[in-house]
C-alpha cells in the first residue's frame, strides 16, 4: 500500500562501517529528510557506529530545529551546520554542553559568547562557494575576541567547499593558512572540518596538516554511498483496461491508444512527480528537463516508475498519495498488489516505510 525504501541491512551496515573505517574522525551528516531514512534512524545508526568502536564523536544536523529529532537517539556531540544567528534561542544547558555551533560572522561570535561564554564553536571560513563564512581578516579578529574569552571552546575551522570542480587543495591550504594567521586559541590539536573532498584530497590534507585533525563531514557518500543496498518500490493498487479515446482520471483525459491505466502508491505527498532541480549542468540535461516540461502540456510525462525495467508514463499528474500510469497495449500487465520499482531522489522523497532487512 505504500512507497517503501527497502534497505539491504547487512550490505548497508557493512558500507557504513567501511566508510567510518576509512575516515577516522568522520562527522556523519543527518539533515533534511535524513536522506530518505529519517533523522531519527540516522541518529541511531550513528550511535551504533560509535558503539561498534568507530571514531565517530559528532553528528551533524542541518538546522537547530532538527536537534530534537536526534538528541535522544545519539549521545555524542552535535554540530549544527547552519551558522548560528542571534535570533536562534540557545538550548537547555544539558544539550548546550554537547552542542557545537557553526559561527560564520564576527558579530554572531560576539553575541553568542555574550549569551553563552562557554559555547563550543567551529569557525566557518568563507570558501569560493560564497555562502556563509568569515573573510581572512574577520577570522583574525575572531582570534582576538576568543583570546578574551577563555571559557569559549573552539573546536576548529569549518570549510564548506563547492562540489568537486577540479582539486580543492590549493584553496584549502590558503584557508587553513588564514586560520593559522588568526592564532585561534585551541584546546589540543587544531581541527579542520571539511566536506566534499575526495578520498585522495583528504589523504593529502591529512599528510600536509598532520599537526591538525581533519574531520570530514559526510552525508551522501555515507548513507547513500552504496546504492545497490537500497531499493524503492511502490504497490500496484489498481489496474484498469482502457480503449483509445476513453476518458479517465480527475481531469477526464482521454487515452491516446488502448492499454491499461495503473494506479500505484506514491504521490506528491511523498515528493513523487515534483520536479526537483537536479545537479546536472550539461546543456543536454537542461534541454531534457525543458522537453519534459513541454510534454506535460500536450501529452504524457515520463514517470519515475519502472515496470519490468522500463520506465512508464504518467497518465495524469500525480495525486497526493497515488499516481496513475499508462501502460500501452502489449506490455505485461502487473497484478494488483505487485511491487514496482521507483527511481527517486532520496533527499527529496518521504517514504511511507523504511524496511531494513536483517
Amino acid at each position, binding site marked *: 500500500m505504500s512507497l517503501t525504501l527497502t534497505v539491504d541491512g547487512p550490505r548497508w551496515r557493512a558500507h557504513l562501517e567501511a566508510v567510518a573505517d576509512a575516515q577516522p574522525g568522520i562527522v556523519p551528516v543527518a539533515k533534511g529528510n535524513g536522506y530518505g531514512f529519517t533523522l531519527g534512524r540516522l541518529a541511531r545508526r550513528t550511535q551504533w557506529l560509535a558503539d561498534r568502536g568507530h571514531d565517530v564523536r559528532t553528528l551533524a544536523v542541518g538546522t537547530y530545529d532538527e536537534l530534537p529529532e536526534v538528541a535522544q537517539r545519539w549521545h555524542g556531540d552535535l554540530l549544527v551546520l547552519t551558522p548560528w544567528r542571534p535570533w536562534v534561542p540557545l538550548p537547555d544547558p544539558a544539550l548546550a554542553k554537547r552542542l557545537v555551533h557553526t559561527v560564520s560572522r564576527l558579530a554572531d561570535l560576539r553575541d553568542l559568547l555574550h549569551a553563552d561564554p562557554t559555547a563550543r564553536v567551529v569557525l566557518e571560513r568563507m570558501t569560493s562557494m560564497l555562502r556563509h563564512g568569515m573573510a*581572512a581578516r574577520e577570522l*583574525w579578529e575572531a582570534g582576538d575576541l576568543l583570546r578574551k574569552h577563555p571559557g569559549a571552546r573552539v573546536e576548529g575551522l569549518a570549510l564548506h567547499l563547492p562540489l568537486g570542480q577540479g582539486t580543492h587543495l590549493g584553496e584549502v591550504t*590558503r584557508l587553513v*593558512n588564514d586560520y*593559522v594567521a*588568526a592564532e585561534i586559541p585551541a584546546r589540543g590539536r587544531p581541527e579542520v572540518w571539511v566536506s566534499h573532498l575526495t578520498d585522495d584530497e583528504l589523504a593529502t590534507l591529512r599528510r*600536509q596538516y*598532520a*599537526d591538525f585533525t581533519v574531520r570530514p563531514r559526510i552525508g551522501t557518500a555515507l548513507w547513500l554511498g552504496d546504492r545497490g543496498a537500497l531499493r524503492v518500490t511502490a504497490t500496484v493498487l489498481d489496474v484498469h483496461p482502457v480503449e483509445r479515446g476513453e476518458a479517465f482520471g480527475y481531469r477526464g483525459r482521454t487515452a491516446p491508444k488502448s492499454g491499461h491505466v495503473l494506479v500505484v502508491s506514491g504521490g506528491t505527498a511523498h515528493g513523487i512527480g515534483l520536479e526537483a532541480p537536479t545537479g546536472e549542468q550539461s546543456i543536454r540535461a537542461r534541454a531534457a528537463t525543458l522537453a519534459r516540461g513541454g510534454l506535460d502540456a500536450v501529452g504524457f510525462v515520463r514517470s519515475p516508475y519502472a515496470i519490468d525495467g522500463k520506465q512508464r508514463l504518467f497518465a495524469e499528474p500525480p495525486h497526493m498519495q497515488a499516481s496513475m500510469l499508462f501502460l500501452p497495449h502489449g506490455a505485461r500487465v502487473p497484478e494488483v498488489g505487485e511491487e514496482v520499482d521507483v527511481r527517486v531522489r532520496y533527499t527529496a522523497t518521504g517514504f511511507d516505510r523504511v524496511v531494513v532487512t536483517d
Partner: protein
Amino acid sequence: MPSVRPISPTEHREFLASLPSASFLQTPGWAQVKSEWRSESLGWFDDDGARAGAALVLYRKLPRLNRYLAYLPEGPVIDWGSDDLAAWLTPMVAHLKRQGAFAVRIGPPVVTRRWSTAQVKEGIADPDVRLLGQIPPAERTPAGARVVAQLHELGWRHQGVEGGFAAGQPQFVFQIPLRHPDGAQRTEDEVLKGMNQLWRRNIKKAAKEGVEVVRGGREDLKAFHDLYVHTAERDHFTPRPLRYFETMYDALRADAPERFTLWLARHDGDLVASTIAIRVGEHAWYSYGASSTEKREVRGSNAVQWAMIRDAIDAGAAVYDLRGITETLDADDPHVGLIQFKVGTGGEAVEHAGEWDLPLNRPLYKAFEVYLARRGG
C-alpha cells in the same frame, strides 16, 4: 601611509645599521655584486619624514625590450608584522611601475614553518615521506601566515617550487639558533652538544690532526677560488669566476667589514677547505664552500664550519644560517645528502614565505614565464 623614494647607498646603509639584521641580498653592497642588473636603493618614510624601511631593487631587463622584472631578493626590508602590508607595498609598486617594471618579485623574509632536527631525520628515514611539507612542523608561525594571507589578498602570486631549487632564493633553509628562547646566547658547548655524534667526532678529529683554520685576506681569494673550481668539477656545478668573489669582497666589506669573511682550513700547509661567511648584524650565513678531494679524512670542512659557528657566537649572532636546502626528504634524491650534512649540525629546517610575483603587465608577464620555462628556470 609611508611614502617611497629612491635613497642613496649611504642612507640605505644607515637605515640597515639601525636594525638588528637584514638579508645580505638587501644591502647596498649586493648591488655591486649583481652589477649585470640595474639597481636602485629605495626608502620608505613615514609622515614625519622618518626612515621606516628600505629595499634593494634589481632590475632585470627583458631581452630586446625596455621593460624590467623588479626583483627584491629576500626583501624589501619593511615591517612585515604589519596588518596593513598594502600601505607598504602599494607605493613601492607604483614607483617600480614608473621605472618600467612589468612585474615585481619579492621575497618576504618571514618564517612560516619550522622543523626540528629530529623531525627532519624521521622524515628522511620514512620512505612514505617525500617532502618536508609532509611532516607536521614543530611550528607554524601566525606572523608568517598573516603575510601569506595578505599577499594573496593583494593579488601577489606565490612562485611555487616542488623538490628542487627554484630559480630565485630558496624557500627552505637550515639554521642553527644561537640564542635560547629567552634571548640568552648559547655557549659553544651547548651548540656542540646539539650536533650529532659524527659532527662532534669530525670536529675533534680535525683538531687532533692539526687542521688550522684562519681568516684570509683579499689576496687569499685566489687560493679559495682554485679549490672552489676543483670542488665544482667534482660536484658538477658551474663555478663563478674569481672576479665575482673579489667584487663581493670589496663591495660587502665596504658596507661593513664583518659582512664578508674568508676562512681557510689548512693541514700541513695544504688548503683542505675554504669558505665564505657573511654576517649582517645578528644574522650569520655560510655562503660559499670548497673542499679538497685529498685528505678528506682530516675533516677540514667540519673544522672550518665549526670555526665559523664559533665566530658567529662570539659576535653575538642570533642565528647561523647554512642557507638553502631543497624540500625533498626522499632518501634517493641526490639533494638529500646536503640536507643530511646540514641536519648533523642540530639546527632546524626553516621555511620562509617564498618568492611572490605581482604582474603589472599581464601579456609581458606571461611571455616572461614562457621565456623562463624555455630556459629551464
